[in-house]
């Protein structure tokens, strides 16, 4: 996006905003603390626009709620842009000064009328107009989104669409505005920053840039490959083919990647698998070696949160038995294959090495984090720099930001007579991702003991299904058992399931077709059918 993918603004800025456009984010469940800030802003008089196929809790307090059909975000966003440019609500000065490609964008949305979008999204055209006008004419307006935007086969287009809205209205580089992806996991941002990426070294320096390559070769004392690697989704597809061995740290890919059956077949085709984790899980079933790791409370280091804030993680208790911190194991494995990784005494030394090689965070160190209790937000190029609360206050980082034209195309897999319901997936408040941690928490287990499927009353009645009844949910890829949860939050024709239950793994259903740019899989939309258990057994 505007030069770096991260929240352009900061979490504490939310309370001062005048308008929040929340799309594809069930904030109250996935990011409760951010939702509190939103409630606070609302209390102070800010407007709230929510777009989500599920009537999520925030929709109840929203000024405008748009219940769009899953996978139709691009149509909605295009129509909003259409309204803004045809009514002349865009910020001409910002567009001239900081962007390119506006003419093409205007042309690309000329047909995208709210009436056209209503036909696709099922959101009333008038609501789309109202949303566009409110967003464009409110000075302090921020966009907040999460996986509901990115986990689609057109996730990149969704993000471009949002970026276009931000750029054409000049809601960038100012307090309480911006484009704000809320990260699902504690250190998604930090892992990206640190170079856990097939194309970037730490600090977003490309592996195919000879200057970066030379710098890292000198620092690490070895030759490095200039060929970008495979991303995770590509690796998953090539398991057993191009990919023959995996080293997996802290991730249960068999549970959390889409299309489980295919992942399992791929894992079986591998020659050698090493897993480093804190529990046995679905993935360790395929492991040749398992390293016991320390959890976050047992080691030192940093996490970087959604608003680019680097904060300390500190050891509070000892790891159980012989478990070791992941960083130590990585060093020992490198040394075991003959690469002279230094004997770091403490993660602060690792951070120092990374910071020295990465201008974006050169100014950050463990020492400085001791004095800055609220963390330091990158960019932070030198030790005197206070960190960056709001990005792009001097215009987009990479000079002028280009508008990206987008075009609506339906999701890859749409319902038909065999699989008549649209399934979306997500997280709940009580559980977390693969559930290895929260499924060992008594409260979460008491509240949500088993996998469930949310369905509208009408769809349930049509199938003669009762609340709590066990059903078989099937897609083209697999079947799982779940309990019916009749919910007023669901739109007709749509169902929703959480992703936290290994014994009834929702990813047996999900589609692994990827976005053409990011390869992020389409977790959010696939077609399923739901049948009562007894009936299915016949």
């Amino acid at each position, binding site marked *: 996006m505007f030069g770096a993918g991260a929240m352009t603004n900061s979490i504490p800025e939310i309370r001062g905003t005048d308008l929040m456009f929340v799309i594809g984010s069930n904030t109250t469940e996935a990011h409760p603390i951010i939702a509190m800030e939103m409630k606070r802003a609302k209390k102070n008089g800010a407007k709230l626009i929510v777009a989500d196929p599920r009537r999520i809790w925030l929709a109840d307090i929203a000024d405008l709620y748009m219940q769009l059909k899953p996978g139709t975000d691009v149509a909605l966003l295009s129509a909003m842009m259409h309204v803004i440019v045809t009514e002349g609500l865009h910020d001409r000065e910002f567009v001239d000064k900081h962007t390119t490609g506006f003419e093409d964008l205007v042309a690309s949305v000329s047909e995208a009328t709210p009436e056209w979008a209503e036909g696709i999204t099922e959101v009333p055209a008038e609501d789309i107009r109202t949303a566009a006008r409110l967003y464009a004419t409110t000075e302090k307006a921020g966009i907040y989104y999460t996986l509901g935007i990115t986990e689609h086969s057109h996730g990149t287009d969704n993000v471009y669409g949002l970026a276009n809205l931000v750029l054409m209205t000049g809601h960038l580089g100012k307090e309480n505005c911006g484009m704000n992806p809320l990260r699902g996991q504690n250190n998604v941002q930090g892992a990206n920053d640190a170079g856990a990426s097939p194309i970037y070294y730490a600090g977003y320096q490309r592996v195919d840039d000879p200057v970066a390559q030379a710098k890292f070769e000198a620092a690490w004392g070895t030759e490095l490959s200039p060929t970008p690697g495979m991303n*995770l989704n590509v690796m998953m597809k090539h398991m057993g083919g191009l990919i023959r061995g995996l080293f997996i740290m802290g991730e249960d890919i068999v549970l959390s990647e889409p299309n489980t059956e295919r992942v399992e077949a791929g894992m079986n085709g591998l020659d050698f698998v090493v897993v480093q984790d804190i529990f046995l899980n679905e993935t360790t079933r395929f492991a040749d070696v398992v390293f*016991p790791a320390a959890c976050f409370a047992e080691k030192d*280091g940093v996490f970087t949160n959604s608003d680019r804030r680097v904060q300390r993680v500190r050891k509070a208790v000892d790891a159980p038995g012989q478990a070791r911190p992941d960083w130590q194991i990585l060093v020992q494995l490198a040394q075991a294959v003959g690469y002279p990784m230094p004997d770091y005494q403490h993660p602060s030394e690792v*951070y120092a090495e990374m910071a020295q090689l990465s201008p974006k965070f050169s100014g950050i160190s463990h020492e400085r984090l001791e004095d800055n209790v609220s963390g330091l937000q990158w960019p932070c190029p030198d030790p005197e720099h206070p960190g960056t609360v709001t990005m792009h206050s001097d215009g987009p980082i990479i000079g002028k930001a280009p508008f990206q034209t987008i075009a609506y195309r339906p999701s890859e897999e749409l319902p038909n007579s065999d699989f008549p319901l649209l399934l979306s997936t997500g997280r709940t408040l009580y559980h977390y991702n693969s559930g290895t941690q929260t499924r060992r*928490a008594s409260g979460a287990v008491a509240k949500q003991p088993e996998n469930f499927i949310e369905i509208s009353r009408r769809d349930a009645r049509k199938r003669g299904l009762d609340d709590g009844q066990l059903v078989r949910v099937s897609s083209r890829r697999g079947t799982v058992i779940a309990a019916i949860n009749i919910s007023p939050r669901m739109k007709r024709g749509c169902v929703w399931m959480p992703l936290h239950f290994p014994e009834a793994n929702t990813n047996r259903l999900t589609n692994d077709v990827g976005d053409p740019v990011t390869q992020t899989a389409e977790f959010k939309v696939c077609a399923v059918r739901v049948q009562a258990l007894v009936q299915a057994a016949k």
Partner: protein
Amino acid sequence: MSDLTVPILTGPTLTLTLDGEQVHAQDGETLLDVCRRAGKDVPTLCAEDRVDPMGSCRMCLVEVEGQRRLQPSCAFKVQAGQVVQTDSDKVQRHRQLLLSMYLADHELDEDDLPRERGTGNLLRQHVLNHGTGPDLPPINAPREYRMENNPYIHFDPGACVLCNLCVRYCDEVEAVSAITLAGRGAKTTIATADQKGLLDTTCEMCGGCIAVCPTGAMTEKPSLASNFQEEKVVRSTCNFCGVGCQVNLHTQDNKIVRVTSPPPGETVNDGNLCVKGRFSMEFVQHQDRLTEPLIRGKDGGLHPTSWENALKVAAEGLMAVRQKHGTDSLGFISSSRCTGEENYLLQKLSRAAFGTNNCHQCAAT
């Protein structure tokens, strides 16, 4: 129990007299704001920055010239020219009587002081700092409450001062209104709407009610068995979602016994936590944790081995794949759950030790 922050002057000021001295204040501030800035020890129970003032506990009363009755400083707005006394005889007498009344209706320890459970008890501090008036007979009112059906939150009506902070937090900050004041007169207490267990209400188990309770009437159940005097506190960052809440991990005998938030004001979570950050730490000391390296045996099962051997087998196995199928036949999957340093080292391992850029974290979004 959370600390109140000292407000900073930002705009044009007005002047008033506080305990005989001229002080500055800003329009819209309360007398309590001014007192805090001036470093006055004005005791409070029901005041808290994150919710609107209620002025119900009467602990913070001050004498304002021209007002016949003492006024709650937490709710009383400043005015230019006011003359205010925070520690006059009248205020002191009133405070001690009030503390006596609170004591008569409070659970006491062996020293006849309000009980302390590790979450802090403001009432105890106020009694120690300001003394009490006459001894009043204990009230021992029977109080109905039924929210125990939940794994995390313990409520002890005997230690409740009915400041209503928990209810206000639940309404105003968490906005789910799971609990409410219930009953009448001496039987008044905190309860759920239909006297259900908390689990069967809209409660989201954020634990905010515990965090704001001034007396420890609300406590973390898991901490009840611990000896809070021996707790050690380590500041860290929550390991669940991407908000990056700051947490204080309270430990005892190498176990996490409770998680609290650092005070509001300086952190991204502003004193708040959600159910995961505050309560979902059982996994840390769970019996299923992996405690030794394992390797796959000939029988197909995983078996314990030494670190030395596990590292050797892993290194040889990965190298054998590389020799047979080429450098880029290996993939390295990193974790958004691990630290920045670990992610850095994983890409270094992948690129420098094994020569491939096939390295990615599990959640690139």
